[in-house]
């Protein structure tokens, strides 16, 4: 249902390709899996969805849309880094990997801890897809946004992601995912569509007032990555500069070396999940938002040709 409204926002009619996999809970842990509008299978506790087969069909839909449209905006599902779900993930990391889709992370500041959420999500993203994380947005903000500046800057420096803007908390009403399905024949009715698009225009206007820059989204989407080069080195690519992002530059340098060390077997254990995040230790007595400090590599890993602690130049 969400995709139906998103389609109308684009001024087009929704099609099954826009939401190729739909999972409907039937109760008691059982679910019905629809694939491109048709019933595919039932799953229950103990059975699981065959990931490869489903991903193939998802990519078919995705490729169709990319062929027919200039831009495709994909919506993720939940958090991409639920540790116990990451292996089977299709909606987030699965799609990013399969097609090299660049991504923007939305953080909800209303509950607090948004910087932790953005940084933590970025840290937990698998290494091969992490370079696809290009930007973040802070959503549902109330009050005076100027107080966020130093925190945003710190997160940008740590991750290399760009803050694309702050969206203020809004009281506009959008239809809930689940509530619509129970209302049945409301789809396509003129008044709901118009009301939705009107609310959307208001939201866009208020977001642009607080600095949300839609042209940046456009630039990010046109830089769609080549899936064969997913493990690329953002330093070699020129995307990260030592001057503009001193912390992140250092992090990337250490990360590349850490990964190389792992491959050479110079680390504590084999890993399936991303390596332990490198810890950043700020210089003693410096304010927490300064970039002075050094990275401490995870325990047990000896990067090649470097002493254990690397200094920030």
């Amino acid at each position: 249902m969400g995709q139906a409204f998103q389609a109308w926002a684009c001024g087009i009619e929704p099609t099954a390709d826009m939401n190729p996999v739909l999972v409907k809970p039937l109760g008691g842990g059982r679910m019905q899996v629809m694939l491109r509008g048709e019933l595919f299978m039932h799953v229950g506790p103990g059975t699981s969805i065959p990931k490869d087969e489903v991903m193939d069909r998802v990519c078919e839909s995705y490729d169709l849309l990319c062929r027919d449209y200039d831009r495709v905006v994909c919506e993720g599902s939940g958090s991409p880094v639920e540790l116990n779900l990451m292996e089977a993930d299709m909606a987030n990391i699965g799609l990013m990997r399969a097609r090299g889709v660049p991504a923007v992370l939305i953080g909800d500041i209303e509950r607090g801890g948004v910087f932790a959420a953005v940084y933590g999500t970025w840290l937990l993203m698998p290494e091969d897809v992490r370079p696809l994380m290009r930007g973040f947005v802070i959503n549902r903000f109330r009050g005076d946004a100027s107080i966020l500046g130093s925190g945003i800057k710190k997160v940008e420096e740590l991750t290399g992601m760009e803050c694309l803007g702050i969206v203020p908390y809004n009281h506009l009403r959008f239809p809930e995912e689940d509530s619509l399905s129970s209302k049945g024949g409301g789809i396509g009715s003129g008044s709901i569509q118009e009301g939705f698009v009107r609310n959307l225009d208001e939201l866009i206007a208020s977001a642009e007032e607080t600095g949300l820059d839609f042209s940046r989204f456009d630039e990010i989407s046109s830089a769609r990555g080549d899936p064969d080069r997913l493990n690329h080195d953002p330093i070699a690519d020129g995307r990260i500069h030592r001057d503009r992002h001193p912390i992140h530059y250092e992090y990337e340098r250490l990360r590349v070396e850490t990964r190389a060390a792992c491959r050479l077997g110079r680390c504590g254990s084999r890993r399936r999940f991303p390596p332990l995040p490198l810890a950043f230790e700020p210089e003693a007595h410096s304010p927490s938002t300064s970039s002075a400090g050094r990275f401490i590599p995870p325990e047990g890993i000896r990067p090649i040709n470097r002493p254990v602690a690397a200094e920030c130049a």
Partner: protein
Amino acid sequence: MDSIKAKVSREIAAGDIGPDRKCPYHPCHFRGQNCSFCYCPFYPCGDEDLGHFVSSRRGERIWSCDDCLFCHRDGVVAFAYGRIRELGLEAGDPRFLSEVFPEAKRRFWHRGRALMVVGATSDAGKSFAVAALCRIFMRRGYLVAPFKSQNMSLNSRVTVRGAEIAMAQSLQAQAAGLRNADVHMNPILLKPKGDVVSQVVVEGEPFADYDVGGYYGEFVPKHAREIVERNMGHLLGRYDYVIMEGAGSPAEINIYDRDIANMRAAEIADADVLLTVNAEWGGSFAYVVGTLALMAPRDRARVKGIILNNIRGDPSRIHPGAEELERLTGVPVVGIIPHLDVDLPQEDSEAFRRAGSRGSGGTRITVVKLPRIANFTDIDPLYLQDTTVDFVETPEGVLAADAIIIPGTKNTIRDLEWLKESGIASVLGEMRGRVPILGICGGYQMMGVALHDPNGIEGGEPRDLEGLGFFDNESSWEGYAKITRRRHCELLDGGGDVEGYEIHMGTTEVREKPLFKVTAIGCADEFEGSVREDEMLYGTYLHGVFDKPAFRRLFMSKAKGRGGEAEPADLEDYDEHVDRNLDILADGFEKGLDMGALARIAGWGERVPCCSWARPPALGRPPSTRHTAGISPRGVRGSSRSRPPTSP
């Protein structure tokens, strides 16, 4: 002094009596207290760690020890009686102060230890976790107090001494078995007045209004640290343990050095820290990893455990993720707590902001959801009855009511204007006389005939507003003065006790028949509230007016609908209801926590409980045979690596 001497003599003769449950005031301090020395044989000890000097009305210096709990500890009492026997001491003997007290202090007085619960977000379940820990520590016989340096809350309570503190700390004090919460447990209280400005209440007194920039730019650097040190010090001098609650996230890096609510408070108290996260929401692992990664290493080193809270469904599904989290962060997961169904007063959480309706009982109670609603926990006891409680913001919502409540508010003048603009005011006029209508605090002020704010205290500019006209009362806001006090009352026609507390700016000239008679000692001819019985109009300043059964029964009986015919036996005292639920909460946490890890972190092996009588654990097993609850005997992890990988 002579009568005190006589009393101490009697106490010496009586010997160690333990807790005196026959005393009508028991427990006047804490559950399990030793009552042998109702009057302390060491008075006046003059020890600034335990008490302080105050000036009497005549300007004399008097030793005040009303916060002291030292002589109620079993160990102290046993020791004192031993020395009394050996030395043949009688009341007034100087050796009490010269010999016995210094020795007792040396042996039994130690500074408390602090344990802090921080949350990766708001609504992580910190408040309930602290309440559960308070109850768990109390069950083991420790003297424990809650603490939150800074709380932003619309639900506040009033202590016995008339100071305003947050609801959560009052609830946690109850969980700890303390009779009286006190202002030291919540020295800084922020009461939001809108989106940007808050009233800052320090140690119970309104201090000033600040916006966010002013608060972090001016108030915190100049005042906050000293306030926290003083109040923390007070508690650590009197309790075995202080369980601290954080506020928001400890990793708000834009204000990190100025955040007195989280890690700076932990540093002042030298506390070990537990990080909780609401695992029901998406991304909880990311929040934990990100929070720890953004903390300064000296603060991160304090974090000794992670609690995954509020898990829906089967908790064992989260084990693989929890193990991975431990491996990634180096911090053990010490608690996997399922969603617990407890009925306890809530903070003003997001859950309330979206709340529409609760319950599906026979009587429909409509509460007008004023934009700046405050103390909505006043309504909680009504959920115990056969009610459906709706929070409405439109006139249509009010029409379906069997009974209407206009609740308290942070800004009466502005909300009265909203009431009129929204059309609810005129609907209330129509409903008048048809259903019972109760106004509490701000709502009560609105029911009057006029409201005067000549200095613009509530409304910004000076206002004179017409009220709803239900009562012939006039309210006015003269100065920036606030009334906070507890009141013991009874229904006027001898119909039972009412207990509550007042928190309001503004005073009311009452020209109606009163609703309650004040029964507190020394308040001979005082009355409270207003009533017009034939029109079923009620008004009172008392928050908590429904806690005791009498007024609850009266109000419900006036409402049409099935719920009005409640049997007297059905009306539970709300305080007992809350206490029962605190036990349920603590039981749930004991099951989900790695109790061995908790014991190690808290250092239970090094601290002798103050009460040799410890309340038996609710699960019915004696403490010595209880193995560590949780996933496995050694917690989630197979290996016990407890050092974070980041220490060089």
